[in-house]
């Protein structure tokens, strides 16, 4: 018997050892690199810095969290960031629903895969290229201005609305796909039954389609919400002078790492709360 077959035999007889060997690496990854770094982030939020050298001083203090809750500008930026994330999510739902309905149920079946590919194509382009494209669109005398001019209007310019618009564009595919999948799997006979029972299309949508698709909407919203909450580059490029949480973290990272860490825990907490809320809708099982 060669060593190889002996080892194979030993592994075969000990399923627990097999499992342990298989899972050690990924679990280490999860525990050390992922959860570990989150723990370090949280712990370092309680440290302070030397104001002259900016070196981290490992003295326990809750000053950073105190500042976080009492400084008006932080509160304002945190609320603004959550507002942006919610607005982007809402816009994505409003745009994605009809689109997904078309690609999943209205378009001819042979075109559907192509339409899905078309929805995915923007994801192939670099994030920065897309955001800079929006910078050009929204700039003075750009495409947005030019298109709205006949109506006597002008584009939103750079600022908060521009940031919301660009983020909506960026994360839209993440919302369309789960809704598309849910609508595609919707049994046709349910719709027929609804119609047979006398429901008009509005009623069918409210009572049959919506309850079945809602978990997928919630699933998509997890992507759009968390991606928007963490973004700080889009807002730098098209957001004018707007600051979001990410920008505050970035501006503190070199000179006041503990403060940056304290600010960094905010989105983590917000997203955990959001996930817990979404779990009630069954979104996590339809991811």
């Amino acid at each position, binding site marked *: 018997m060669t060593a190889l077959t002996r080892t194979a035999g030993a592994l075969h007889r000990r399923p627990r050892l097999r499992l342990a060997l298989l899972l050690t690496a990924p679990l280490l990854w999860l525990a050390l690199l992922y959860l570990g770094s989150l723990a370090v982030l949280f712990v370092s939020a309680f440290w302070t810095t030397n*104001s002259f050298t900016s070196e981290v001083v490992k003295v326990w203090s809750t000053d950073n969290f105190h500042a976080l809750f009492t*400084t008006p500008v932080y509160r304002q930026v945190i609320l603004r960031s959550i507002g942006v994330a919610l607005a982007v999510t809402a816009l994505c739902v409003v745009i994605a629903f009809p689109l997904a309905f078309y690609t999943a149920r209205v378009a001819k079946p042979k075109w559907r895969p192509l339409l899905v590919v078309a929805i995915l194509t923007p994801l192939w382009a670099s994030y920065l290229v897309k955001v800079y494209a929006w910078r050009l669109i929204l700039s003075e005398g750009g495409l947005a201005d030019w298109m709205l001019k006949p109506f006597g209007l002008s584009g939103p310019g750079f600022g908060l609305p521009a940031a919301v618009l660009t983020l909506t564009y960026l994360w839209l595919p993440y919302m369309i796909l789960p809704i598309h999948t849910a609508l595609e799997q919707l049994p046709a006979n349910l719709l027929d039954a609804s119609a047979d029972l006398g429901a008009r299309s509005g009623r069918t949508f409210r009572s049959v389609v919506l309850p079945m698709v809602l978990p997928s909407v919630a699933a998509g919203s997890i992507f759009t919400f968390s991606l928007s909450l963490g973004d700080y580059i889009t807002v*730098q490029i098209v957001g004018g*002078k707007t600051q979001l949480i990410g920008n505050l973290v970035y501006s503190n990272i*070199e*000179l006041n790492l503990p403060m940056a860490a304290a600010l960094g825990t905010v989105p983590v907490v917000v997203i955990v709360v959001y996930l817990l809320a979404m779990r009630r809708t069954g979104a996590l099982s339809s991811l």
Partner: protein
Amino acid sequence: MRITRTFQVAAAAALLLAATACGSSGSGGSSATGLNPPDLKAQSKLGTSEGQVNLIAWAGYVEDGSNDPKVDWVTPFEKQTGCKVNSKVAASSDEMVKLMKTGQYDAVSASGDASLRLIASGDAAPVNTKLVPNYADIFSGLKNGSWNSVKGQMYGIPHGRGANLLMYNTAKVSPAPTSWSAVFDDASKYKGHVTAYDSPIYIADAALYLKATKPELKIKDPYALDQKQFDAAVALLKKQNADIGEYWSDYLKEISAFKSGDSVVGTTWQVIANLTADEGVKVKAFVPKEGSTGWSDTWMLYSKAKHPNCAYQWMNWIVSPTVNAQVAEYFGEAPANSKACDHTSDKTFCETYHAADESYWKNIAFWNTPIEQCLDGRTDVKCVPYAKWVQAWTEIKG
């Protein structure tokens, strides 16, 4: 290729600034900062080369042709001296200081705030300028500055400098501005189209303006502000915020904003003004009557360097006329060596960047890191330290 180059320079410069650099007011060589560096001795003569040297630098300062085959001043140095160059690009002054403390590096291209900290902590060694022959040709305005020397002892070799200018679109801004009031008191005229540099150090620009317009505040040095002066500068910037279209922190953003007309007036650097003009935008950039802020970098030597002889040769090399001309043109700054101007590929380069115009630099308050001990020598008040500047900058932007 041009794009990548611009990108690099942009990144380099953005990082340079993000880090808040440089020196203190102009030519003043006073050490009123209360700096008492450890007593270190400068090397008295050069020994044999160690075969390599480890450098920390801003992007664009140590180019070996790997970014652009035509941009290479490291390979000739290695050939000539036998010192292999290992370089590490740092993203900020704080990173530079941290890296220097690891003890693995021999020299660093430090900006003013980093250099003061390195001197104070004893990480930077005094430099024997006699071992750097090219030091003789360095512009006198860069020698014995308060950001690179203590009591007449140089702690490094000056590399280059630049000023923060006021740029405006000549087609859209009239009459032509002469003062920083264009972006402060009169900014509402161009509401939503004013731009400013996105860094806490920009508070010094407001202080510089107040120094000229509000004499009752008695501001002497825009980097030494007591609480009352600081509050006035912050209030001015909060008022300015209403008229700001966007703040800029990298090259490309400002160029594109001026090109599209989203920005028509605001702070800039000479190199951005040149690139914007190249894009066909009618802009003019100048130093307003109040003077301006600016930056200057210095090559500093680690006090326990493992390869000091190669490091000395590098410092001499980087400020030699041809190489200093190359790096200044690549990066977009005024060279430190007075003879570099004969070697630039663009013959008007030094004129554009005012390299030799000492009266021009007299009006420039080089960046410095504000500390509690007032840099202007006042002892009866405490000044606002940089950490508070960072905090205030967040509040200004709201």
